[in-house]
Structure formats: structure tokens, C-alpha cells
């Protein structure tokens, strides 16, 4: 049937068969295997932590731990309701400070003066701040708030956490605003929008999912921070009083894990599980918001 297409004698069809033992193919298989192994190994720490937390922490997980105060030395039972409230309160304070601050700064960086000196310096500072050891945020808030107010407090804790959140919110919000297509921004100006109107009516609604993702990630990070709170909020065995030392999950874990009492150590495990679950849920929320993103 292929008489018409018959090839000249000196012309051979290339061999298109797959041969697994050829050096090139072999190299490709080995390298692929290594990358898969690396990817799997990278997951091991997270899963082993989760499994251990579930195993050790779930034993004491009950409604009781959410609404009772920490036990004293030889007391049985108890919980860490105050630490959950404390963590939520301080993270809330931090978010209230860092979200407006970060988003406003991002608007300036992305839209109003992206090339200005101020923007360049601010961007550089924010990038440096994201790598700032969190203990330094604690020391700073200690000097700036605790020493002046004369007491450890939830306010100081919130401010210390906000120092860590501002750069994250700022940089992710800047990215989100920059991602809004330029033609859409042009259209807004072409319709006769002032910069403020363009921002509020066109750019921010489109950038909002991206900004929310950044905010949630920043909140998740702040919720797990211990070092800044050691210097600012300290710990407390009582319910939240914002002007007094305040309990938080992270510091509770730090304190109780080193104690010689079985009850406290068990509670530290359970608190770890609760904290990880909180961060986990926040991450899922941020992914859900991010996925709804549609230009």
C-alpha cells in the first residue's frame, strides 16, 4: 500500500522505540527518582510532627481544655482556655495594627510612588524585616512598650506580633495590587477616576483575594510565634486582662514542656495540637480565598 511512498535505499527510518537501558534514559530515570525522593523527604517532618501531636495531644483533647484555666503544680485536670483567648486577642491586636498599615503602605508602593525613594527604602526595609529574628521584635516591643507602660501586657504582645506581620502583609498586598492588569487600571483612569476612585472601585476589589491570602498567612505566622511574647506578654494563669501579663498558646507550650509534672506536659502536647490545627485551618482558609481569585 505504501508503494508510492517507498523510500530510496540509502534512506532509513529513525528508530523511535523506547529503550530503558540506554544511558540517556537511565540518567533521566535516576534523576527523576531522586527528585521524587527529595519531595517525599521534605514532607516527612510535617507529617511526623502531625502524627506525634495527634498521638500525644489527642489524649487530653476535650471540651474541658478549651474553657478551664491551667492547673497548679500537683492539681489534676485543667486546660488552657485563657491561653487560647490570649493568643486570639493578641493576634487580633496585631492584625488590627498591621492590616491597615500594611495595605496602605502597599497601595503607595504599588501605585502611587513605585519608583520613589521612599518606596524603594520601604520595600527594602520590609524585605529585611521578613527575615528579622522574631526574638528581636520581642526585645523591641519590650523596650518600646513594656518599659514605658511599666508592665507586661497583651498590648505589648500584640505590638510585637504586628512587627512581624506588617512586612508580610505589605509585600503580599503590593504583589496582589501589582497583579491587577494594567489595562484595567488604564480603563479606570480613562473613565475619569481619581487615583483614589480607581483604587477603591477597580483595583482593590480585584486584588482583595490576594491581599486576604497575605493577611491570613501573616496571622498564621504570628499565632505560632513564641519569642516575641516571652518578652512582652509573658504568661498568666488567669483569664485575659489586657493590661496585665497574658497567656498565649505558644508560651504555654514553652513553659509547660519543661515542667516536671505529667499533667502539664500532657497539656503542652494538647496545646501544641490545638495551635497547629489553628494554623492549619488558617492556611486552608487562605488557599480557599486565593483560589477564588479571578481577574
Amino acid at each position, binding site marked *: 500500500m505504501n508503494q508510492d511512498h517507498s523510500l530510496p535505499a540509502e534512506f532509513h527510518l529513525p528508530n523511535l522505540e523506547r529503550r530503558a537501558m540506554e544511558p540517556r534514559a537511565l540518567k533521566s530515570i535516576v534523576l527523576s527518582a531522586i527528585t521524587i525522593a527529595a519531595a517525599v523527604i521534605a514532607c516527612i517532618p510535617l507529617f511526623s510532627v502531625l502524627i506525634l501531636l495527634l498521638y500525644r495531644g489527642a489524649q487530653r483533647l476535650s471540651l474541658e481544655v478549651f474553657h478551664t484555666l491551667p492547673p497548679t503544680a500537683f492539681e489534676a485536670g485543667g486546660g488552657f482556655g485563657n491561653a487560647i483567648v490570649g493568643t486570639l486577642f493578641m493576634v487580633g491586636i496585631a492584625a488590627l495594627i498591621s492590616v491597615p498599615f500594611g495595605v496602605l503602605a502597599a497601595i503607595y508602593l504599588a501605585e502611587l510612588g513605585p519608583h520613589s525613594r521612599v518606596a524603594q527604602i520601604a520595600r527594602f526595609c520590609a524585605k529585611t524585616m521578613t527575615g528579622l529574628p522574631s526574638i528581636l521584635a520581642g526585645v523591641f516591643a519590650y523596650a518600646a512598650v513594656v518599659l514605658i507602660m511599666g508592665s507586661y501586657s497583651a498590648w505589648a504582645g500584640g505590638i510585637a506580633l504586628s512587627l512581624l506581620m506588617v512586612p508580610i502583609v505589605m509585600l503580599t498586598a503590593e504583589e496582589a495590587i501589582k497583579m491587577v492588569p494594567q489595562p484595567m487600571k488604564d480603563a479606570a*483612569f480613562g473613565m*475619569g477616576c481619581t487615583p483614589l476612585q480607581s483604587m477603591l472601585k477597580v483595583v482593590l476589589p480585584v486584588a482583595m483575594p490576594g491581599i486576604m491570602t497575605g493577611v491570613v498567612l501573616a496571622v498564621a505566622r504570628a499565632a505560632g510565634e513564641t519569642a516575641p511574647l516571652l518578652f512582652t506578654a509573658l504568661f498568666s494563669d488567669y483569664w485575659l486582662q489586657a493590661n496585665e501579663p497574658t497567656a498565649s498558646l505558644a508560651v504555654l507550650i514553652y513553659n509547660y514542656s519543661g515542667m516536671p509534672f505529667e499533667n502539664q506536659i500532657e497539656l503542652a502536647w494538647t496545646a501544641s495540637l490545638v495551635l497547629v490545627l489553628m494554623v492549619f485551618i488558617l492556611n486552608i482558609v487562605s488557599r480557599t480565598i486565593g483560589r477564588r481569585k479571578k481577574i
Partner: protein
Amino acid sequence: MMLMEYPQNRSDTVRTEAALPKDVILDCQAEKIYYGDFLAVRDSHVPIHKNQITGFIGPSGCGKSTVLKSINRMNDLIRGFRFEGKVHFHGTDIYRKEVDAVAVRRNIGMVFQQPNPFSMSIYENVAFGLRLNRFSGNMDEKVENALRGAALWDEVKNKLKNNGLSLSGGQQQRLCIARAIATEPQVLLMDEPCSALDPIATRQIEELMVELKKRFTVAIVTHNMQQAMRVADQTVFFAVDVSKGGRTGYLVEMGSTSQLFENPKEKLTKDYLRGDFS
């Protein structure tokens, strides 16, 4: 200017309108346009005639888009942009210090090369400019009229709540036209409005432009000479001057479309139309 209240412009209008030829609604005198140190356009005087379509043609980089975008001060948003010259609109130079660029853009609408509807419903896209101007009358009617004016109503009347970005490219561009004409600007600038569209959508837009000129004045940049021939009443030909080492665009010739295409005065125009250079 029915939706705008800018008293200082009003009084100027009354004072100097007589000085201009009756049918020139907007007179663009671009002496020099710079981006930073780069001289992009020189010596281009383009009068825009009322209720006509003025086509800007010329090779790439000849500054035709730059001149067009200077007319409603869109270029103000570009870093380093500097305009020397005047743009008379109702006797007011829109580059005067006291003039608000935002107000200019509300009266001189713009349709861009890439269809760029907002990420909101079709209805809200069209209502956008009206809301900006705090229009308080019958919004539904205005939106319907604008969509009819842009020959889009029949295709979208049952899905006004859908996102404007869900439409096809040609529909998006007509949505952008509807958005621009909803506020009834006096002049509509179009920057290669068909270059991202297929031939069928292009044809629809061209037919639409001819309809639009009954109510508005249109200036259109196009890289497609046939398009200029089909729709434009006046045609402006720009070319690039590379003599001084730069790439400076300038106006070579302007005239009625039939005169410019059939009987160009300048040799450069003749060469370009024959296809000797691009």
C-alpha cells in the same frame, strides 16, 4: 458636557469659541512630546472635526498613539511624559495648569487596544462612569441605551449580571465602547480598538463607529490602512523622522480620507500608501 460641572471651563467656552472653525470640536497642537529625554513626537497639528471620524495612520513608533492619548491626558500617567503645545477643547487649553486631567477624561472618552472591562457585572461596567458622575436618574435606561448604542444589547440583555470578563473579545470591546459612551462624552478616542479582534468582530466595531459618529466625534488610531479608508472621514498620516539619531514621529499630511488616499500631496505619503516602506 451634560454631566459635568466645571464652571471655569464653561466661561472660557463662551469667551473663545468663536475663534475656532465651527466644526472643529478639538484642536490638538502638539509642538513637542517627550518621554524623559526622548522626543517622541514633534510638530503635529491635528484638528478633530465634530461628528466625523478622524483616522490616525502611520508606521509603528510614529507617535500616533502618543498624540491620541495626549488628547485626554492619559499620558500624564506615564513617567517622564511632557507635552509642549496646546490642546484646545471648547476654547480651553486642556494642558493649562488650572485644568483637572480627571475632568478632561470624563469628557473625552477612551477605548483601548486591549478590551479592558472591569471585573464586575456587565451592568456595573456600563454604569461605572455614570456612578462616578453621581448620575441620579434612571440608571437602567441609561445602561440599556449605552448597550444598544454599542450594538451589544441583544447579546447581553439576559445576562447583565454576568461578569464583563466572561464575554468574548469582540463583545468585551463593545462593552468598553458602551462604558465609554454611557456618560455621553463629546469626543471618543479609540486606540487601535480592533487590533486584538478577529475579522468579524472588527467589522462589527467598524459598523458601530459609523453609527457612533452621528452622536459623537471619533478619533481612531489604526495600523490598518484599509480600516482608515473604510471608516475615517479625515485621515492623518504620521511618519518617523530618524534624521537626528532619534525616532521622532511627526505629522506628514492630513486631509479628507478620499483626498489623502487618492491624491496625496506628499511623496512620503504616496510611498507609504503604495507600500514602499512601513
